[in-house]
């Protein structure tokens, strides 16, 4: 393997946002009081912008290298070195991670700028930006870490920031509960992640090369290919463990429950953390370890199935939600499902491609939703919106563009990436998973246009007072929206497939990481075109249906839902009752066992302890009586008053307990010693 090129600027890409977080976190309250919110915005946004510029610089540097030599590394110091475990703090950049840092600092930077407007009225402005910067740092660390343990710092670090930002308005317990839920569900995944790390390190260590560094794992993984534990291949088990981590972070069924609740945070947070970046960490992790996953076909099938099911089921939930952000949340879960479907089909490049385009259009949708919510004075119920298109012209435009991109209509960005995934899974033989993904594409087009029609079209349903106050957002919020909408429009050009006359540039860019795409072998071009037409068709069908129900009202929404009324509708509206199920089993179960533990301590162990203490006291009391009435009687008979003082001393009972304990135990063990020494 080539030695990567040493650099000394990668660290700044990662550490600059940490600096911003440090300044605002420790001194923010004072800065805000002394110099106003401008100072906070300056401290927070500058590092991210510089990181973005440095990321472009790094990208240019990579571009200048031969494709197979595109690795940059920046080693700082040895973090942990014990036995054969050697972990350095080192950042590395290859074609995969450079795309991630561009998205994180690029989209993240735009969201920082948008937040200046969105959070303007909040008194804890400094705290918001400190956590947003800290998040950016942790996310950058996650993608640039050159080993699993360092990645795990970023992995849990982003989870922590997510917790802190979901519960940002902590005075309301709805928010803090959502934060707790996010952190704890993620922790379940994190345990899986940790066990995966242990298993990989342990098996490589058995093979003589214990390591957690990505490049070394890649080099030595052939050594553990046939190793087994508990009758399962270690690679299969390790990849499954790691996938549990990915399910937690990327909200895949059955660990998806935290993400919709996470919408309690400020909307830019939903855009950055719960749509564009953090939730894609699981996808990134699998792509990063593609060499491992490719050795575990059964894990890949599991991933593809979980991904497809998630894509489909959460899209169905999205159909009936009325909260503007919840629809987008279920949409995110669903789109992440597509990315996992891609991973499971071994189409890593397609998955990351969708990650990138999704970051553009979903961030755009969330930020636009934020603009709507702010215009509507924090109203999030779509049933109370409608007809906003003239009042919010820019927001309407950006929402529409991003919505079309999500619906997968060409030539918008989402079309190319989603279609690539569907095609790759079909050609990979995952027909069932493809069918789910295909159906979900129709549902996606339906729910997003249902939303667009409910929010922007039709007649206004808000009360006149709110209606009169609706206004377009300030420029500082509109500008990021326009940029993201533009990216949602053209982002697909990164990966135009060959059948459409493109050259799939992004796939070639990733070749040094994922290897050459294997799907070329005589794939029938006609079939690819047919499937493409089908998925555009089902998308258009979804849009038409939404149009007929929610705008033309030819099919009246109420009749439609009453047609599907009763059990199915309630099931969807109540999100398949998964939350209730978990509450009843895991949460109640844990609390039950915790009470059992406390009960055992109080009534069993302490009963024995107190009982033995009381028994000892009782015995010593009897002894005291014996002393007083029997021994003393004899003693007094023999010699009258000499021992009077001694008797009084002996009545102190605690003293007696100790001495009796000593005597009894001493005698027992002395007997043992004697026995030992004199019985050979």
């Amino acid at each position, binding site marked *: 393997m080539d030695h990567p090129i040493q650099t000394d600027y990668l660290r700044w890409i990662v550490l600059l946002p940490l600096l911003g977080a440090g300044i605002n976190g420790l001194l923010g309250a004072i800065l805000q009081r002394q110099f106003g919110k401008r100072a906070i915005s300056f401290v927070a946004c500058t590092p991210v912008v510089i990181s973005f510029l440095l990321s472009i610089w790094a990208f240019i540097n990579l571009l200048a290298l031969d494709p197979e030599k595109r690795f940059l590394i920046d080693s700082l110091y040895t973090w942990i070195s014990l*036995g054969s475990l050697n972990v350095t703090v080192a950042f590395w950049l290859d074609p995969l991670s450079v795309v991630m840092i561009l998205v994180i600092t690029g989209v993240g930077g735009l969201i920082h700028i948008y937040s200046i407007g969105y959070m303007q009225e909040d008194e804890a402005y400094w705290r918001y930006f400190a956590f947003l910067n800290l998040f950016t740092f942790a996310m950058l660390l996650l993608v640039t870490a050159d080993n699993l343990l360092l990645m795990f*710092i970023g992995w849990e670090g982003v989870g922590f920031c997510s917790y802190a930002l979901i519960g940002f308005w902590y005075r*309301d317990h709805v928010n803090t509960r959502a934060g707790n839920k996010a952190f*704890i569900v993620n922790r*379940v995944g994190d345990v899986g992640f940790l*066990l995966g790390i242990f298993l990989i390190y*342990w098996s490589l260590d058995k093979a003589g090369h214990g390591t957690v560094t990505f490049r070394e794992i890649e080099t030595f993984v052939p050594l553990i290919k046939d190793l087994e534990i508990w009758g399962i291949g270690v690679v299969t088990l390790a990849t499954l463990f790691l996938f549990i981590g990915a399910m937690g972070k990327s909200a895949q069924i059955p660990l998806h429950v935290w993400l919709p609740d996470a919408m309690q945070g400020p909307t830019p947070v939903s855009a950055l953390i719960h749509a564009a970046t953090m939730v894609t960490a699981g996808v990134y992790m699998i792509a990063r370890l593609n060499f491992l996953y490719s050795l575990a076909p059964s894990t890949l099938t599991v991933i593809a199935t979980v991904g497809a099911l998630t894509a489909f089921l959460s899209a169905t939930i999205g159909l009936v939600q009325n909260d503007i952000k919840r629809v987008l949340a279920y949409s995110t879960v669903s789109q992440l499902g597509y990315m996992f479907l891609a991973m499971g089909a071994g189409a890593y490049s397609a998955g990351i491609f969708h990650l990138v385009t999704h970051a553009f259009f979903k961030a755009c949708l969330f930020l636009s939703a934020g603009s709507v919510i702010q215009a509507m004075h924090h109203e999030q119920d779509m049933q109370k919106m409608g007809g906003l298109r003239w009042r919010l012209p820019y927001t309407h435009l950006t929402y529409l563009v991003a919505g079309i991109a999500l619906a997968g209509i060409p030539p918008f960005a989402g079309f190319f990436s989603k279609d690539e995934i569907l095609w790759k899974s079909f050609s990979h033989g995952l027909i069932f998973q493809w069918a789910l993904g295909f159906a979900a594409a129709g549902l996606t087009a339906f729910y997003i246009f249902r939303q667009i029609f409910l929010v922007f079209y039709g007649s206004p349903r808000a009360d006149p007072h709110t209606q009169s106050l609706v206004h377009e957002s300030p420029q500082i919020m509109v500008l990021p929206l326009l940029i993201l909408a533009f990216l949602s429009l053209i982002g697909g050009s990164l990966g135009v497939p060959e059948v459409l006359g493109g050259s799939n540039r992004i796939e070639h860019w990733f070749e040094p990481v994922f290897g050459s795409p294997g799907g070329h072998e005589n794939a029938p071009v006609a079939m690819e075109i047919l499937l493409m037409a089908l998925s555009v068709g089902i998308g258009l069908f979804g849009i038409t249906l939404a149009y007929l129900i929610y705008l033309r009202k030819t099919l009246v929404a109420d009749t439609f839902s009453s047609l599907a009324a009763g059990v199915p509708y309630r099931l969807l509206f109540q999100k398949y009752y998964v939350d209730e199920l978990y509450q009843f089993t895991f949460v109640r179960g*844990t609390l039950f066992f*915790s009470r059992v533990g406390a009960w055992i301590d109080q009534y069993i162990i302490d009963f024995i*302890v107190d009982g033995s203490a009381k028994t000892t006291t009782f015995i010593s009391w009897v002894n005291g009586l014996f002393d007083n009435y029997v021994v003393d009687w004899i003693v007094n008979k023999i010699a009258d008053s000499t021992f009077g003082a001694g008797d009084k001393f002996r009545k102190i009972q605690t003293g007696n307990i100790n001495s009796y304990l000593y005597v009894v135990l001493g005698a027992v063990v002395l007997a043992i010693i004697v026995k030992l020494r004199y019985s050979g």
Partner: protein
Amino acid sequence: MAESVLTLIVFFPLAGMIAVLFLPSERHNLIRWVSALFTLPPLLLSVWLFVNFDRSEPGFQFVQKVAWIPAYNIDYFVGVDGLSISMVILTALLCFLSIFASWGIDKGVKGYFALFLLLDTGMTGVFVSLDFFLFYIFWEVMLLPMYFLIGIWGGSRREYAAIKFFLYTLFGSVLMLLAILALYFTTEPHTFDMTKLIAQSGKYSTTVISFWPFDWLGWGFQHVVWMALFIGFAIKIPAFPFHTWLPDAHVEAPTAVSVVLAGVLLKMGTYGILRINFPMLPAATADFAFYLLGALGAWNIIYGALCAMAQTDLKKLVAYSSVSHMGYVMLGMAAFTPQGINGAVLQMFNHGIITGMLFLLVGVIYDRAHHRNIDGFGGLATVMPIYTGVTALAFFASMGLPGLSGFISEVLVLLGAWERYQVLAMIGASGIILTAGYFLWTMQRVYLGPPNEKYQSLPEINGRELFTLVPLGIIVVVLGVYPHAVLDLISSTLNHLNQIVIPHLS
């Protein structure tokens, strides 16, 4: 300097106690400052130790040996190796900060500080003693002041708690004394010198004793002694089922006493096992490691966490979190891998720092609200933002958030344990979910949510309280980023220790 540095560290607080005893008892501030003055030199000297300690040497350094009672081969014999130096530093730091955390004590000030300083000497003495007799003396010296500190300056059920603590530990030390005597008499010539006892460890018989119950259990002499020592130490750790003294003692003890109780005293259990059981009785250690260290440790992790979740008293919750976190130490040391044992000792250090913070933080709120009922607060973040920020740091450190110190030791323990006991490592790892559960739930109930009407005007954390917390907070962050500050100190000794036991593993 190098010869007497440990003696100075041990006896400075004792000198302080004598000084305090000569002060007029109504001059409270003078007593406090004099106490602080006498705990500062040990801290500075342990920094000196930290700088001058030879990190590549696994054996004892800064050794001082003076004949004490020659008739019984008893010496004044002190020294530190990688295992004990981390504990000496921890003790010096926590005791110094605890003096400032005791500022609010206004009943029997003179007695309190005198006893506290005596406790300091006792604790440090335990960690540096290389003579078994001396070790035992310090062990008992530490016990008495603790009994009185809880029993006199404690809360409403202080007498029950103090007696419970005293009886539990006394029971343990009786067994320990017998074990020490057994070792003393089986060595020729009779000696209390730990280094000599370690050197002869091969001679302690493992042949099964031929009468009940030992023949049934398959125990030899070595196992019996091991068990006697282990019970003594397990009470201190505290390992299930010997742990119930801890929550009671903590709830009743004043803040600073809780800090040293959890921060330092608990470490003596695991320290004793590593210092004595491991090298002196390696064969028995190997035989018992799975059930009594590994499995019991994993059980401690889960059981302690579950009990913590059920508590309504904030201090009791923190106390049970100690039961849980000390489980990681046991699990780590049972693995006999470099990561496991180093992780275990690092966890001892980290737990001392983090739990010290936690108890100090509980003290801050107790001093203001005069209760610790978790459900009786709410929304403190609005009223006391800085205090809440520091609490969040301590909570997340205790949860093992990566980037903070607790993570490093927990992950090392679990990684090390995985090599030998995969299932135990999995159980231990799942403990981090429960830990997150009870800490976040506490965070939510006490600090977040709408501010409680009753506590709208609580004063923010003050300078003195911050002074006790900030150094610990800095250590938590620094060790998370650069754990080798401590790992370098401990690793050569611990790796050597592993090598003593490993040949006996079957």
